């Protein structure tokens, strides 16, 4: 009788401690931004473990950079959907009317032309672009750090994500502020010494060397700074998520 009562008390304590421990861990994880938008469903635990671990280990780490001699002679651009009429008009005009809008949780919503972006301090890195399918290539990427453009617009302190929208129909994706402010995250307008070719996303693509290719969206026209993914797609802020692909692709 005594033993079973003791057992009951001990297991009661253990269960309470376990439950409150889990709840505390969840609160801490939420507070420190360790829970990805696609944390639900059967793959949620895996996505959350990967994202949380990599955020703790790799928040400031830099993607490997390569030497000029390692640049792939023939970078594979992957297939593209046929261009829309709107895109063809921009292409015919040499992208002189292309605008990048910055809105959402910023002090000063803004809009930049490609010439504006090129007038900002430009940066380059020679990094690998890696497709989730397995193939890859190395190129020199030229652009303006996303953080520079975000700082010009003035990001609210409670902002958590940057959603970026492509001119391709139904194409948008998003990253957390750690990646948005990362020094290697570029609004990329050049590649291997010239303007970014259209097959590679010209005139403007997102370049995130610490994430898989599909997060490096092509033909960027808008950045929206937000603290929630609720209004974006199915709540994951990412079109690929609607096709079962992960939001975070550091793996």
């Amino acid at each position, binding site marked *: 009788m005594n033993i079973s009562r003791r057992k009951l008390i001990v297991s009661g304590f253990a269960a309470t401690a376990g439950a409150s421990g889990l709840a505390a861990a969840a609160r801490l994880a939420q507070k420190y931004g360790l829970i990805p938008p696609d944390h639900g469903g059967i*793959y949620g*635990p*895996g*996505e959350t*473990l*990967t994202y949380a671990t*990599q955020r703790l*280990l*790799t928040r400031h*780490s*830099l*993607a*490997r950079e*390569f030497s000029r001699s*390692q640049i*792939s002679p*023939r*970078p*594979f651009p*992957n*297939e593209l959907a046929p261009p829309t009429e709107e895109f063809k008009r921009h292409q015919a005009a040499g992208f002189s009317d292309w605008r990048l809008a910055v809105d959402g949780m910023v002090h000063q919503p803004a809009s930049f032309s490609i010439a504006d972006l090129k007038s900002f301090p430009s940066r380059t890195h020679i990094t*690998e672009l*890696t*497709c*989730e*399918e*397995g*193939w*890859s*290539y*190395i190129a020199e990427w030229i652009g303006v750090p996303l953080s520079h453009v975000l700082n010009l617009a003035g990001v609210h302190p409670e902002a958590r994500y940057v959603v970026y929208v492509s001119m391709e129909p139904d194409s948008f994706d998003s990253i957390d502020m750690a990646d948005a402010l990362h020094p290697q995250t570029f609004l990329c307008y050049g590649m291997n010494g010239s303007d970014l070719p259209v097959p590679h996303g010209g005139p403007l693509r997102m370049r995130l*060397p*610490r*994430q*898989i290719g599909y997060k490096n969206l092509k033909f960027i026209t808008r950045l929206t700074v937000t603290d929630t993914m609720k209004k974006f797609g199915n709540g994951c802020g990412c079109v*690929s998520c609607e*096709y*079962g*692909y*992960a939001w975070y*692709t*550091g*793996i």
Partner: protein
Amino acid sequence: MATLGPAQLPAEASVPSGVSTAPVTKLAPRHSAFVRVTHWITALCFFALLVTGIEIVISHPRFYWGETGNVLTKPLFQLPIPSSRKTVPTGYNYVLPDQNGWSRALHFETAWLAVLTGLLYVIAGLVTRHFRKNLVPSKADLSWRALLTSFAKPLRWQRPSVTEAYSYNGLQRLTYLFVIFVLFPLVIWSGLAMSLGFISAFPWAVNLLGGRQSARTIHFFVSLALVLFLFVHVLMVSLAGFWARTAAMITGHTRTPKEDA
């Protein structure tokens, strides 16, 4: 003898070569609970990792050596299978449906479960002296004669003797140690070496393997070695008596010679 606990093997069967003529009468636990639980979690993970791994390979069944590789570069080799991407020249005039989304998600989720289970297994194995008792071969086990006998017997499709149900022979011990301490760590390492986030923090993990495409190719071959192990493992279990051995890995108990007789 005095130190034998209920979870330990009968003294007669603890002869490392596993060949003993002494009668075994006690109903002894063959596998401890932690071995049984981690075995089946690992088996489940392996199945999920294999299926999803194949799905991912189908999206680009070409392999390269070095840092980079794509359809515009020469592959090390290409698997003669159709692909789920029309950008890959396969020689087949059809494209399989894209399964990469859920395959990647399940691959990484089960990889987490497998790695955590593996860590638990190694810690428990050290604490309970499982490796020392059951897997590290003795000098006698490692004699060429003993190893050759262990190798030749199943080749002649000879069932193991009854007492061998209680202990592993030298060849089994070496194989299990190789899988646990060489193949599993290699497959985890080469997998992590493909993770862009991981290698940004630990670049040596991929550089030591000779680049990201080399890591992918190594991951493929180590997985093949693990599949080969699985085939031989199931074949040997079948030779020894599939249901009896499987039951031992579920309940912990194996049949006594009396029951076999």
